[in-house]
């Protein structure tokens, strides 16, 4: 609902930065983050909205950040691609493919050294494992049995290039297995399955048994970057899109809940969330822009 609101209002020109929407990939974010403690840490990518919200990130500060306001979670310095909320363990979002992977690995190394018992998650995409630094980090994480889970959301495309043009036809989990890493694979649009697989991976990591590569199949509904649908471009077929639409993670959950979610309760929830979103949008709209002089702050600690 948050991102539907972003898409609906993006054209108004208040949100003046690139937005990479997670619509269609919600269950992966929620299933993974629900299996974590508040003190556990996640590192995300340019497509970070769902991860930020699933880990409990503040909605007002998210909208303010996307609108470039001083009240944004990082004061308007990063925009949509850099969301973070340290209090909630949303440590950083880094919009260079695979760039956050060694950072997350180092985070797990720090927690291992401090014996904190915390687990780190590196959210990555299917293209990340094409980058050398994924392999450098995976090798190190296995060698030192670090408490980390590499969650790979495979949405089949890197921008507009399909996976089959970028990688040979082999299970992506084999790449992790070749590093001697535990690997698991599931339907990232199935919340329960994601939660179950992630809980196993977290337990494995917390016990000191090392990392897991958790591959989650999912699909991005809207364009790579921006608020629109883009099937007309031709990089993917309408039929493929429609097939994935039938696997909508939210409708699947709805169906599973069945009578467990009373219509009245659902209506009340939707209304409350709508109010929250409108309030966050209003907060962001009313918030002042940062002062130009602030651009030179925090170069050095």
């Amino acid at each position, binding site marked *: 609902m948050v991102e539907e609101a972003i898409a609906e209002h993006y054209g108004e020109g208040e949100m003046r930065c690139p937005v990479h929407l997670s619509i269609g990939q919600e269950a992966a974010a929620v299933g993974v983050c629900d299996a974590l403690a508040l003190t556990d*840490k996640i590192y995300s990518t340019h497509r970070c909205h769902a991860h930020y919200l699933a880990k409990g990130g503040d909605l007002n500060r998210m909208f303010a950040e996307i609108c470039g306001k001083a009240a944004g979670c*990082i*004061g308007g*310095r*990063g925009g949509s691609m*850099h969301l*973070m909320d*340290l209090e909630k363990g949303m*440590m*950083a979002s*880094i919009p*260079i493919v695979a*760039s956050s*992977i*060694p*950072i*997350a*690995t*180092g*985070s*797990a*190394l*720090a*927690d291992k*050294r*401090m014996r904190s018992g915390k687990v780190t998650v590196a959210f990555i995409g299917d293209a990340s494992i094409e980058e*050398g*630094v994924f*392999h*450098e*980090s995976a*090798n*190190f994480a296995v*060698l030192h049995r670090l408490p980390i889970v590499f969650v790979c959301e495979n949405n089949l495309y890197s921008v507009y290039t399909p996976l089959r043009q970028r990688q040979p036809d082999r299970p992506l989990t084999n790449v992790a297995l070749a590093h001697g890493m535990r690997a698991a694979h599931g339907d990232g649009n199935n919340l329960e399955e994601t939660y179950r697989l992630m809980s196993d991976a977290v337990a494995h990591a917390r016990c000191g048994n090392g990392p897991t590569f958790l591959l989650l199949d999912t699909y991005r509904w809207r364009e790579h970057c921006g608020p629109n649908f883009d099937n007309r471009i031709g990089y993917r077929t309408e039929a493929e899109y429609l097939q994935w639409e039938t696997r909508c993670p939210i409708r699947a959950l709805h169906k599973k809940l069945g009578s467990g979610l009373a219509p009245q309760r659902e209506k009340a929830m939707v209304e409350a969330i709508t109010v929250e979103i409108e309030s966050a949008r209003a907060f962001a709209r009313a918030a002042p822009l940062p002062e130009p002089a602030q651009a030179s*702050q*925090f*170069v*050095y*600690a």
Partner: protein
Amino acid sequence: MTAQAVSQERIITLADAIREGLIESFARDDRTFMFAQGVDDPASMWGTIKGIAKRFGEDRIIEMPVAENGAVGIAVGAALNGQRPVIGFHRVEFALLALEQIVNNAAKSHYISNGQHKVPLVIRMVIGRGWGQGPEHSQSLEPIFSYFPGLKVVMPAFAADAKGMLISAIEDDNPVIFIEHRFLHYATGHVPEGYYKNPLDGPRVVREGKDVTIVATAHAVLEAIRAADVLRDIGCSVEVIDMRVLRPLNMATIQASVKKSGHLITVDTGFVMYGIGAEVVAAVVGQNFSALKAAPVRLGLPDHPTPSSRGLVVGVYPDSLRITREVGKMLGIGDDKMQLALASLEEQRKNLPIDAPDPFFKGPF
């Protein structure tokens, strides 16, 4: 003799001074650890990490797989989470594989996070020449790292400064690129024992003078000192400034010196083009143009890669002879005097190989 006097007499190499700096920092703070390639290598990174694993244990000096970008990223991640890592690259060229993490994450995490993250990280990089290291093992790439706001870049010339600056770098809450010229590892100097810090605050005057200001980095500082010594003998007073800290750039000492001397020569260990000297000259011309009595001169490497053969590197590195000649030209010193100065330098250098550290630079200075 007092204890302090004894310690001031103690002369060790710059490499040993760096090792002492690491040991002092490791002993004071168990959040400090190092990623090194070749922990058990008997060469032990010019002796700078010798015995550290034995004394502090394997989890304080971690053998890093051959994965430079990963190493820097992992160190940044650890630094964001309260650790204080040090990384050692035996050649600055290896660090090029890690530019992505250095530029995007080390340099910017504090800024992007609106001050919420800090990156207390030291990356040691060895630059410089010798023994036919050739085009991809002997570059001096300090200007690359000096380009990025958020990084600190330091470049000691003297053993005592190297130890004190390394301890400061490890205690600094910013990512510090710690540049070591490989010839200088063998140079010696008086180095105090125990723990002390030298601030990462900027250039220092290492020879006072009034006729010309020479601003130099690392090994070039020693070449400049040598030139200053022979020029002094012919009545020319040279002020030599050791840059020490390339970023953040503090120009105050240099500006004050040029205001006094009216003459400026810069000597880089790297390329002249787009080099440190370019930045220094631009800053002086911009702020103290009217103080200059002659056009500033920049010395450094010529505009081609540095080859391996000792036959090909003749004249490539700016040495004390070239510095002395440039001073003579700039100040209009008479030929007679100049010949005295140059003959003295040529006599010192006679029969010495170009590809090994000059024994003159053993120090102390």
